[in-house]
C-alpha cells in the first residue's frame, strides 16, 4: 500500500499536470469536509459512498457479473452460497458446510435455516435448486461458469447435491459469486427482477433514490442474519465512467473510494487519498500457433523462447506503466495458489542469446508473422515491433476495427496476439486459458500439460495445487506465452475508510470496507 502524503505543492502539481501550466493557487485540505461517513462509535448512521466504472445490466441473478467492480452493485442485496475471502479462499455464507464425493462430481451442501428473502419467501434447498436451474437456463456472461453443473438435487429441507458432468475446480469460487447468488424463487421468472432485486442480502435497494446509470442506494436491513460483516448502514454507489470525474469526486470528498489510473497516483496522493495497487492483469504475447500451423517457426521451442528473452520487460514496465506492477514470465498472478515466484524472472532480457536461439532453430533470417493492428493494444505494438526486429521477425500488421477485435482474436488468422488478460485467483481459470478455453485457438493439446490439468481437475487440496504449479511451470518452460509483466490496477480511498483489497478484482467487495478507526 502506498501511503498518502499531504502536500500543497503536490496538489498544485496535480493542477499543473492537468492543465499543462505550472501555476495555480489554493490548498488541498478539503477531503474531510464533505465526506458523509459518520463514526460508528457515536451511534450515528454510517454511510459509504463509492464510485464505480461499471453499471449493472440487470438484477436477474442469471445476468450478474462477478468481474471488476460489478459485485459492489449486487452483493449488498444478494447473499451467495459461499463467500470470498481476501486470501483467495472461500468460506461459509448461506452454505454452512460442503463436501465433494470421491471423484469430485457431486458437491453436497448444507444450508442455513434462518434466512428469508425480502418478499417473505424462505431460503431453503428448493430455493437453491430453483436459482441454479434458473442460472442454467439463462444466457448471462457467466453462464459458462456453470457448464459443469448437470443438475441440483434436493436432499433435505436445507441440503442439496450439485451434480456435475465433470469435476470443476472453479465451482467453489463460482458459488461465492454470480453462480451462487440467491434470489427469491417466486421472483425469478418475474421480469421486474431486472430492476428490483429480491434477495436476502444485508441491504435493500432504495428504489426512490436509485437512478439507474447514475447512483444506486442501499439501506441496511434490520433483521439480517450476519450484520457484523457489513460495517455501513447505507451504501451509495455512483456510476462514473469518466476517469477525471472519479478523480475529482475523490479529491473533493464526494466519494470515499474508486478506481483511478496509474498516471493519477501522484495527484491522488496529493489529495490525501490512500492508493492501493492491486495486481489484476498480465500483459504480453499469447503465442497461439504452438504447432506451427500458420507460421512453422513457432513450433520450435527455441523460437518461442527467443521471443521471450527479446523483451526488456523491466524497461517496458517502467515506460508504459510507470513501474506500477511486477516483471513476470507467467500468466498466473500472485493471488493464485499456482503462483511460483521463481518463475517471474524465468526469462531475462538477453538479445544475444535470443539471436543465438533463433540461429539454433534455423531461423536466423527470421520469418513473417501476421498480427492484429488493434487500438486496444496499440501502445504495445512499437515494443513488439522493436523486439521482433532484433530477431529478424517481420510483422504483417492487419488493421482491425475496435469493435471487431474480440471476435477477430479467435479467428485463427493470428498466430501471435498481444494480450492483456486477468490473472484470476482461480488457478484453473488462469491456466485453462492455455487449455480448453476458446483462446486455445489452434486447439493445441500437449500430453504433459493435459496430464497436469486433468490431475488438477480430478483432485483438490495440496494434490491439486501441486498439479496446478506443475502446469504453470510447464507453460513457462515451453514458452506458450511471452508474458512481460503483471500491471497494477489502482484503487484509491479517502482517509475515513479502511479497505481490504480483493485479489484479482478491480474493486473490493462492500464487506471489505469499514470506517477508519
Amino acid at each position, binding site marked *: 500500500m502506498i501511503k498518502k502524503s499531504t502536500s500543497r505543492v503536490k*496538489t498544485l502539481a*496535480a*493542477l499543473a499536470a*492537468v*492543465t499543462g501550466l505550472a501555476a*495555480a*493557487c*489554493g*490548498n*488541498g485540505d*478539503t477531503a474531510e*469536509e*464533505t465526506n458523509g461517513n459518520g463514526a460508528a462509535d457515536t451511534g450515528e448512521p454510517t454511510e459509504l459512498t463509492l464510485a464505480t466504472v461499471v*453499471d*449493472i*445490466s*440487470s438484477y*436477474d441473478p442469471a445476468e450478474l457479473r462477478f468481474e471488476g467492480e460489478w459485485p459492489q452493485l449486487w452483493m449488498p442485496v444478494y447473499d451467495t452460497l459461499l463467500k470470498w475471502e481476501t486470501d483467495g479462499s472461500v468460506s461459509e455464507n448461506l452454505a454452512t458446510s460442503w463436501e465433494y464425493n470421491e471423484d469430485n462430481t457431486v458437491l453436497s451442501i448444507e444450508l442455513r435455516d434462518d434466512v428469508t428473502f425480502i418478499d417473505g419467501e424462505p431460503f431453503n434447498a428448493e430455493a437453491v435448486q430453483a436459482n441454479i436451474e434458473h442460472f442454467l437456463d439463462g*444466457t*448471462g*456472461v*457467466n*453462464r*459458462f461458469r456453470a457448464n459443469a453443473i448437470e443438475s441440483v438435487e434436493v436432499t433435505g429441507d436445507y441440503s442439496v447435491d450439485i451434480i456435475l458432468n465433470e469435476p470443476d475446480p472453479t465451482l467453489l469460487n463460482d458459488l461465492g459469486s454470480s453462480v451462487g447468488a440467491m434470489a427469491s424463487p417466486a421472483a425469478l421468472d418475474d421480469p421486474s427482477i*431486472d*430492476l428490483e432485486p429480491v434477495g436476502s442480502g444485508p441491504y435493500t435497494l432504495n428504489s426512490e433514490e436509485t*437512478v*439507474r*446509470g*447514475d447512483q444506486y442506494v442501499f439501506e441496511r436491513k434490520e433483521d439480517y442474519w450476519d450484520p457484523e460483516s457489513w460495517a455501513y448502514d447505507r451504501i451509495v454507489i*455512483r*456510476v*462514473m*465512467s*469518466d476517469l*477525471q*470525474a*472519479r478523480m*475529482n*469526486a475523490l*479529491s*473533493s*470528498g*464526494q466519494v470515499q473510494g474508486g478506481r483511478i489510473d496509474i498516471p493519477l497516483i501522484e495527484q491522488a496522493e496529493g*489529495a490525501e487519498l490512500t492508493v492501493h495497487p492491486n495486481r489484476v492483469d498480465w500483459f504480453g504475447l499469447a503465442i497461439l500457433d504452438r504447432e506451427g500451423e500458420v507460421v512453422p517457426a513457432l513450433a520450435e521451442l527455441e523460437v518461442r523462447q527467443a521471443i521471450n528473452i527479446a523483451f526488456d520487460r523491466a524497461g517496458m514496465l517502467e515506460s508504459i506503466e510507470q513501474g506500477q506492477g511486477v516483471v513476470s514470465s507467467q500468466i498466473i498472478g500472485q493471488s493464485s495458489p499456482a503462483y511460483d515466484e521463481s518463475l517471474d524472472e524465468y526469462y531475462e532480457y538477453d538479445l544475444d542469446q535470443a539471436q543465438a536461439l533463433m540461429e539454433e532453430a534455423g531461423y536466423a533470417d527470421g520469418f513473417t508473422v501476421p498480427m492484429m493492428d488493434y487500438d486496444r493494444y496499440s501502445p504495445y505494438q512499437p515494443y513488439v515491433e522493436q523486439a521482433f526486429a532484433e530477431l529478424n521477425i517481420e510483422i504483417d500488421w492487419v488493421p482491425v476495427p475496435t*469493435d471487431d477485435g*474480440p*471476435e477477430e482474436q*479467435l479467428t485463427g488468422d493470428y498466430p501471435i496476439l498481444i494480450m492483456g488478460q486477468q490473472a484470476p485467483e482461480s488457478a484453473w481459470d488462469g491456466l485453462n486459458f492455455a487449455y480448453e*478455453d*476458446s483462446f486455445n485457438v489452434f486447439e493445441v493439446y500437449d500430453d504433459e500439460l493435459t496430464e497436469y490439468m486433468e490431475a488438477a481437475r480430478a483432485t483438490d487440496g495440496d494434490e491439486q495445487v501441486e498439479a496446478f504449479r506443475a502446469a504453470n511451470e510447464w507453460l513457462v518452460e515451453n514458452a506458450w506465452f511471452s508474458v512481460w509483466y503483471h500491471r497494477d490496477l489502482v484503487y484509491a480511498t479517502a482517509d475515513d475508510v479502511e479497505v481490504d483489497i480483493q485479489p484479482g478484482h478491480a474493486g473490493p467487495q462492500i464487506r471489505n470496507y469499514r470506517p477508519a478507526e
Partner: protein
Amino acid sequence: MITYILRRAASGVLLILAVSVVTFLIVFSDTQRIVRSLVGERATAEQLAQRTAEMGLDRPLFQQMIDWFANAFTGDFGASWLTSEPVAQVIINRLPITLSLVICSIVVLALISAVLGTFAAVRQGGAADRIIQIGTEILSALPKFWLALMLVIVFAIQFPLFPATGYVSLQNDVIGWATAVTLPVAAVVMGELRVTSMVRGAIADELNKDYIRTLRSRGLPSREVLFKHVLRNAAEPWVSLLSMKIVGIWTGVVVIEAVFALPGIGTLATNAATRGDGPVLMGVVVATVIVIVFVYLIFDLLQAWLNPKARLT
C-alpha cells in the same frame, strides 16, 4: 401566423420520421456484437441464438422497424439492452438534466453577450471594447473540458464552494440544483463567449447606420436611441446566433456531462453509442430531434415576431 406554425411543425414531424428511419437502419442492421457482448465471449452458438431470439433480433429488419414505430407511437420505446430500464423512463429521467444545462447556459450566455456586446459596441475602439473582445475570444478558444477541469479544481477542490460532480433534482432541492449546475453552466458559457463579439458587431453596425445619425441629430437621447432603436434592430441576428448556439451547446454538452459526471442525455448517448444499446440510441435520437425541432420552432416564432418579413420565407 397559425399557418406558419403548422407549416413549421409539419416539417419538424417529417424530419423526426426521416431521422428515426435512418438511425434505426444504421443501429439495428448489425446487432450481433451487442448480443455477443451480453452473452460473453464464451457463450455457445445456441446461447447466442437464444439471446438473439429473446431480444427479438431474429426477426427481419423491416419487421423490427415496423414494430418499433408502432410501439413508439404509443410511447413505448422498448427497454435498454444494457440496463433493462424502459427507454422512455430513461429519457424522462435524464432529459431534465441536459435541459437544465442547456437552458441555463443559453439564458446566461444571452444575458452576458447582450450586456458585454452592447457595452463594447457603445465604446467601439476603446480599451473596454478591446478587453471584452480579446477576453471573450481567448475563453472561447480554450477547450471546454479544460475550462471545466479548471473550474472543478479551483471551485470544488481548492475552494469547495460547489460540488465537483453529480446532479440534484430541481424539485428536490433548489439550492442543491443551483450549486450542481453552476460550474457546468459556467464552463459551457465561457466556451461560447465568442457570441459577444458577434453581438457587438451587430450593434456596432446598427450604431453606424444613417438612421441613427438622423435620430441623434433630432436630439433624441443616446439611451433612447440605443434601447428603442438599435437593440431592437440588432436583436434579430442575436436571436439567430443564439438559436444556432443552442444546438451547438446541446451537442457539446457531452463533454461537460462527462467531466461533471452528470447523468444527462449526453452521457446516455455516449454510452449507448459506444456499447451499441439500440433502443436507447433510438430514444436519444428521437428525443434530441424533437427538442431541436421544438427549439427551432420557438426561435423561428421569435424571429417572426421581431421581423414580420420572416414569416413569408
